């Protein structure tokens, strides 16, 4: 554990000396938090007019609306689109850090002294993964906390607040988000260890956002319904993918290739 802690400490000490990284980490969550609040605020004023109208809500989603008015049902349906923004945060934020972490050390020639220490590949990758994922997950949770605190201030009804603080959202933010973060970080580390240019690493790593975009569009098209069942399926699938990626990452991290064939 000492080696993993040291790598995390080193990564954070380096990363947080860069103001642009701090800006990236804080700016996007702020926008992603404000945006749904603005939307809710605007919708709140129109809820009275929409009462009883759930024509645009997919039928399969109506089960999630029991005890809610038509307007509130419409609100939580639309808020589910924004839930995906909260799920994107722990994916997008750590990509910058993780994508740079190996290739960055290659370019500054600090990787060889690091690999010359007794640190194991698993410890090195675990340290780098956690160093990228933890700030992203904490920031996402903090943003969601702020979002929850702000809901009563903009006049959101108790029913809608209960839904957002309910199992679907909590599973998404507390479990699915971190699991997706691990996928993103491991993918970015894999890319980072294979390419020779930090810019290429960042560009290629962003590919990992595509599945979330697919979910977003599928939900908008009414092809999938985001509810507790969906979240449980996502958790099982992501947990399996995470385990696979961690093992794959450690097995394909070839110290020799990285040291001798990166120029």
């Amino acid at each position, binding site marked *: 554990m*000492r080696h993993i802690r*040291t790598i995390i400490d080193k990564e954070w*000490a380096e990363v947080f000396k860069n103001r642009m990284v701090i800006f990236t980490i804080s700016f996007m969550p702020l926008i992603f938090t404000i945006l749904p609040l603005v939307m809710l605020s605007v919708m709140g004023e129109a809820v009275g007019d929409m009462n009883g109208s759930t024509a645009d809500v997919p039928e399969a989603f109506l089960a999630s609306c029991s005890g809610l008015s038509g307007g509130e049902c419409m609100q939580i349906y639309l808020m589910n689109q924004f839930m995906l923004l909260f799920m994107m945060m722990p994916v997008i934020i750590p990509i910058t850090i993780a994508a740079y972490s190996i290739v960055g050390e290659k370019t*500054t020639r600090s990787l060889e002294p690091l*690999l010359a220490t007794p640190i194991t590949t698993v410890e090195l990758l675990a340290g780098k993964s956690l160093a990228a994922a933890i700030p992203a997950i904490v920031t996402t949770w903090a943003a969601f906390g702020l979002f929850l605190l702000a809901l009563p201030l903009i006049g959101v009804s108790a029913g809608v607040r209960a839904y957002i603080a309910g199992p679907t959202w909590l599973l998404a933010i507390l479990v699915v988000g971190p699991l997706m973060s691990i996928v993103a970080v491991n993918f970015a580390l894999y890319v980072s260890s294979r390419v020779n240019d930090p810019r290429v690493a960042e560009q290629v790593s962003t590919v990992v956002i595509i599945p979330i975009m697919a979910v977003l569009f599928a939900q908008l098209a009414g092809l999938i319904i985001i509810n507790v069942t969906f979240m449980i399926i996502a958790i099982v699938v992501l947990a399996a993918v995470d385990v696979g990626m961690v093992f794959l990452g450690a097995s394909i991290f070839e110290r*020799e290739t990285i040291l001798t064939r990166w120029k």
Partner: protein
Amino acid sequence: MIITQDLGKVFKIGKKEKTEIKAVEGLSLAVREGEVFGFLGPNGAGKTTTVRMLAGLIEPTSGSATINNLVLGKENSAIRRSIGILTETPGMYERLSAEKNLAIFANLYDVTDVPGQVRKYLQMLGLWERRADPVGSFSKGMRQKLAIARALLHDPKVLFLDEPTSGLDPEAAKMVREFIESLRALGRTIFMCTHNLDEADRLCDRIAIFKQKVIAVDTPAALRQQLFGRKIVVHLAVLQPEWADMLRGLPFVQAVEALENKLVISLANPEQDNPEIVRQLVEAGAAIRFIGELRHSLEQVYLEMLHQNGQGRQA
């Protein structure tokens, strides 16, 4: 301390890894405990590859080696723990302070007293006053010193130094050399890659001349003798031609050359034979001004060795 037996490394490159490059071939060495061992060779000779293999960073494709009695390939993690390595480029974390850089590596080497060891080596290398400054603000010499400190933090028995004074100004290079001397005094085994022949001559107990394979291994003095023998130069006020013939008649004299007012005499053992030569010349009426040993530079030895082995650079 470091023993290699037919160690080799072949890199496979190109599409489908069809092209093979022999970086190191049949390397057999025995570096003794407490020795400063110079590993000399031109650029691309395979020196860095050898160090990387011995440090357990890359796998040899043939042969075997033990470092500190640990078997390479089977106990690589323990090997890395027992050695220190100064890589060709310092590779420090430039945004972080000198102290932080060393603390990171002290933790990775599982050093017990991290602050104590960091302080000890920063003070020893004259960097204590700059400990809080980011390494990015350091001169090249300071970075190299810091990289040496990093290699020593865990008090390794064996130290690999890859071009330790490369790119340093004379003052910084001298400081690094003095530090290596002090490490030798502490009994550390040092394996030093360099193509600075003057440095190798001054620092190394033994050297290996290497280009993909070992061309020669011995002390610098023994290699000189092996190639050029030992010669003394006798500076005279006036040279009489018959004195050269007189000396050629002595049984221990191998060869005599007369050059202006000098006699260059090849001897197997100058310490033993010089008094007789002086006596003969004085009795013949020669006025001797000065006697010294003709010393070939290590550069001459190195170039001659490479040339003899067909490894010299094409003109």
